[in-house]
């Protein structure tokens, strides 16, 4: 008891010293995320430490699994007992919460921090609803990456990164011949649909990709792109091991880290696992865009702030919004998580070559949004179902399946 009191006094003193604006009520935040893998937790810890350094009291309520965390959050929100902050993927899923008046706008903080100037316009538009900023972005992820084990490539005699799909499949054959599992595959539907999307981008191009997902275009050209995508996806089945069903993405990454498998298709958060395992980019593993990819599929994370009555938590929300957008925090967070800082004015010297490439693609506008950004949760779910059904049914014909693909928009 005495210790708690002491801590409170010290904490209050710190809060008063570092943030005079919130002197009366110490900033406190219960933060709910699904960031629980080694690298994700390390990245979250970067924000936590800075938050505490500035006098906040942090309470972690992380739940493993994106869907599970969402379900818990919705229950608590509806019950009137929300956490102070929730990790939220930028996109349509948040619009309902804003529409129901459940989230708190953080426009004053965004204005004070000049977010409109330091964020790419497309991102700033995405965090703004009805003219007010609601989300504090933490980082962007590229999802068109193929990670490969340099060790495995050397053993199989694959020299350099394959430039197109034909070379890519030739490399996979070499890996197979050398007794290495060619592809580390995470057999969960969300992972499979990410692979589908990155292949679709290589086949449809940026305009074709946007036409399909944004305009829901069903022209012959779109159907053909989907068919070609499914052909490549189907071909990959032969390079995947039997134990892939239901495998977590980080378990698949571990297969590449240990050299048991050659390549993994995954978003750049996989890089965080390599970093956490002490591997070095360029020496132990490499990253390349999916073969022939004209750009990169991206997704971005942020914090959302439910309306909450408690003054201490309100201060905590304001402080967290600031901390998450701090330039130094953005870089340190990205290094741990494998993401790309979402601010354009950060110190790029510390970023690795993949992150720099990602930042470059973002700057050049050669990015297309992930399904979370352009599809409703229902449509995104239908996309997962579609890809998973196709993947698990080798007898399915690509052209016939491509016709079914467009039913996800209904």
């Amino acid at each position, binding site marked *: 008891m005495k210790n708690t009191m002491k801590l409170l006094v010290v904490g209050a003193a710190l809060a008063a010293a570092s943030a005079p604006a919130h002197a009366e009520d110490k900033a406190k935040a219960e933060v709910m995320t699904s960031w629980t893998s080694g690298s994700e937790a390390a990245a979250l810890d970067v924000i936590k430490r800075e938050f505490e350094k500035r006098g906040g009291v942090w309470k972690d309520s992380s739940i493993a699994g994106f869907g599970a965390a*969402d379900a818990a959050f919705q229950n608590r929100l509806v019950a009137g007992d929300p956490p102070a902050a929730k990790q939220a993927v930028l996109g349509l899923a948040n619009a309902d919460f804003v529409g129901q008046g459940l989230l708190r706008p953080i426009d004053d903080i965004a204005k004070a921090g000049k977010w409109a100037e330091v964020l790419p316009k497309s991102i700033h538009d995405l965090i703004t609803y009805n003219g007010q900023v609601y989300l504090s972005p933490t980082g962007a992820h590229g999802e068109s990456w193929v990670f490969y084990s340099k060790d495995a490539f050397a053993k199989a005699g694959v020299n350099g990164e394959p430039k197109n799909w034909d070379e890519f499949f030739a490399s996979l054959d070499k890996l197979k011949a050398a007794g290495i599992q060619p592809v580390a595959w995470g057999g969960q539907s969300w992972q499979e649909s990410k692979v589908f999307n990155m292949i679709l981008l290589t086949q449809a191009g940026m305009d074709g990709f946007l036409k399909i997902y944004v305009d829901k275009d069903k022209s012959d050209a779109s159907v053909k792109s989907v068919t070609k995508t499914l052909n490549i996806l189907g071909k990959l089945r032969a390079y995947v091991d039997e134990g892939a069903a239901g495998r977590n993405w980080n378990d698949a990454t571990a297969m590449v880290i240990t050299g048991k498998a050659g390549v993994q298709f995954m978003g750049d958060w996989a890089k965080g696992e390599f970093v956490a395992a002490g591997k070095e980019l360029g020496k132990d593993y490499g990253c390349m865009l999916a073969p022939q990819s004209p750009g990169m599929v991206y997704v971005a994370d942020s914090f959302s702030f439910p309306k909450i009555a408690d003054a201490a938590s309100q201060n905590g929300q304001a402080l967290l919004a600031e901390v998450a957008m701090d330039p130094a925090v953005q870089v340190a967070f990205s290094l741990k998580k494998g993401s790309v800082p979402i601010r354009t004015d950060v110190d790029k010297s510390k970023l690795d070559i993949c992150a720099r490439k990602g930042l470059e693609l973002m700057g050049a506008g050669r990015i297309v949004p992930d399904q979370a950004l352009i599809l409703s949760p229902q449509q995104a779910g239908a996309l997962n179902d579609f890809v*998973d059904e196709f993947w698990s049914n080798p007898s399915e014909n690509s052209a016939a399946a491509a016709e079914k693909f467009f039913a996800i928009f209904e």
Partner: protein
Amino acid sequence: MRAKRRRSLAATFALLPTWIAAILVYIGTMIWSVRLSFTDSTIFPSSNYVGFAQYARLFKNSRWLASLENVLIFGVLYVGGCLALGFVLAAALDRKVRFESMFRTIFLYPYAMSFVVTGLIWQWMLNPTLGIQATVRALGWQGFVFDWIVNRDMAIYTVVFAGVWQGAGLVMVIALAGMRGIGEEQWKAAQIDGIPVWRIYLSIILPQLGPALAASGMLLSMGVIKTYDLIVAQTGGGPGYSTEVPAKFIMDNLFERQNLGLASAGATVLVLSVVMAVAPFRYALAMRAGRMGAHR
């Protein structure tokens, strides 16, 4: 007469809170869910009625249709398998074997576990690269194949395995208790007539265990409808939709897919199917009870 009425009035008052709770909490929420199934609610309840549109979408959804088929296969095999295996285990223990209580504990033990644990154990055992297949191959049989869990046509049966493994112990205990209640004289009489043991169990013991087995069958069937955790832990509904079940479909749509309307429609269909399955039973029971009352 008056005293009696007053007493019943007092009892009614005492029960009133329970009645209110039952009506509000159970019936009320049920009506609320049914109401939602006729709206276009997404993440939050809405009052925009769309008629049977959600039901039409539901029955056009191949994942939902697959889930109905799966729960039927699973339900029949799971309940049947548990009853059959449970009865056989009970009969084996009934033979007054040594260490009976130890075996009883071992066989009942799986039932004490949560479905999540059961699902995970079986997922690992059946995983071709980790479990049984890998072990047998490591022992030298290189051609050994046991990959049902990753095979679309067989995956649902692996869930049945896990379910029966867990549930058979319960049936065993109930059936064993029933067998112990059967008098020694019947055994003696049957043995004097020279009836083989298996025949005694099948033709004399089994018919007398009817109520016990019906009760355990009922308990297991209720579990079938709400099967969710076992599937999530063992297969996640995969490969594809091959082990999808209605409860998982509803949960996924409720939260991840933010589709309250469709999820409520699914839940309503589920409740209706349970009512359709149970109503004839209840009706027959009520009829029989009424007839017995009249005789008395």
